């Protein structure tokens, strides 16, 4: 699949929501745990060799499942292949939990759901659509399907 690599590389250089050195294993036959720098930027998780400026790869965090494995360990898998897990070993259980929380919230779809909920709540409380002032009430991506006034 073609993609705009230059822009993705540029994204990888931006300030991260979260970044850390962890041990990572990709779901490939024979692969082993390797020390990696992982960096969460918008809905991508980039992973780098610890001494390199350019990422080895990126995971788009949509339709994925974040699972707590054993102590200090979590995994990322994707809906269509739930047994194929990217494994991450953290330095501490606390760090592990922080990553799980951050990754669960990292998807565009998660944010969309939050937005729709907040919009609805505000509308219920005030009778006004909070998106109107920004001129985006009609945007397809913000629709819930409640009947329009």
């Amino acid at each position, binding site marked *: *699949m*073609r*993609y*705009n690599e*230059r*822009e993705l590389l*540029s994204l*990888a250089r931006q*300030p*991260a*929501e*979260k*970044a*850390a*050195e962890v041990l990572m294993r990709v779901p490939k036959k024979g692969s082993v745990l390797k020390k990696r720098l992982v960096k969460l930027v*918008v*809905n991508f998780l980039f992973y780098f060799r610890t001494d390199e400026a350019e990422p*080895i*790869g*990126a*995971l*788009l965090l*949509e*339709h*994925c*499942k*974040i699972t707590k494995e054993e102590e200090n360990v979590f995994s990322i898998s*994707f*809906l*269509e*292949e739930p047994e194929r897990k990217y494994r991450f070993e953290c330095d501490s259980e606390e760090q592990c*939990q*922080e990553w799980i*929380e951050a990754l*669960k*919230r990292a*998807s*565009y*779809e*998660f*944010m*969309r*759901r*939050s*937005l729709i*909920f*907040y919009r*609805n709540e*505000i509308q219920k*409380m*005030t009778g006004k659509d*909070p998106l109107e*002032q*920004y001129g985006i009430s009609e*945007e*397809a*991506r913000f629709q*819930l*399907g*409640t009947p329009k006034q």
Partner: protein
Amino acid sequence: MKLNERSLAFYATCDSPADNAGFLYKRGERHTAYHRRWFVLKGNMLFYFEERESREPVGVIVLEGCTVELCDSAEAFAFAIRFGGAKSRTYVLAAESQAAMESWVKSLSRASFDYMRLVVRELEKQLEEMHSGTAGGRGGCQVAPTSWKQKPSGPERSPERLPALPAVLPKENGCAVWNNAPGGDPPLDTCCGGDNSEGSPPTLPPRRRASSSEAGSAGAAVAESPSTFCWLHERYGRAVAQLRKEWLERQPGPRL
């Protein structure tokens, strides 16, 4: 750079609703001929397929950081997706009608994750002000247009803090599934203050500035409990999932 292409392809073709979809002409990189492709916009990813029925996209344009402009082109209804870098490619696309062009320009220019995040934070702030603020925050509240920049917490705000949540996360994995069936009830009895009556949304935790830590720095900027948000989101998500289900059932035909 490796990408999780299989998952990307799945995301592109699964039946989660697209934010926009339709035929567009895409100008080639080296040659100026236009090729008609089927485009699907989901979130901040613009996928394009050779045919509408193709099982896998030919490619994807990651839209983060782009600007969308109208184009002066011999081709009618043309517009461009531009990126900031010096050597960045500009994607020139053309729609088949004025209406289609406007629809695409609108949806693409607001497709970024950053934009969505700004809107969410703004609404979050408004909701929080209504809950934790004075009675003046309710009823006929003036939702004055605020700047997108984050403002520091006002001194009059008294954010209510939730008691510590149990360490066990809600049964349902809070994953980013469009059709995620709501899971077990979160442990309501062990958290939240007395004002969390049934039917009203839980009190929002205090807001924090997003951490923009550089690589290597500890994630120390988490002032609010992350598990609070995740739990809250799960609870919120149920209503949304239900409403969405009802809405989908009411739709006459396949949604664009």
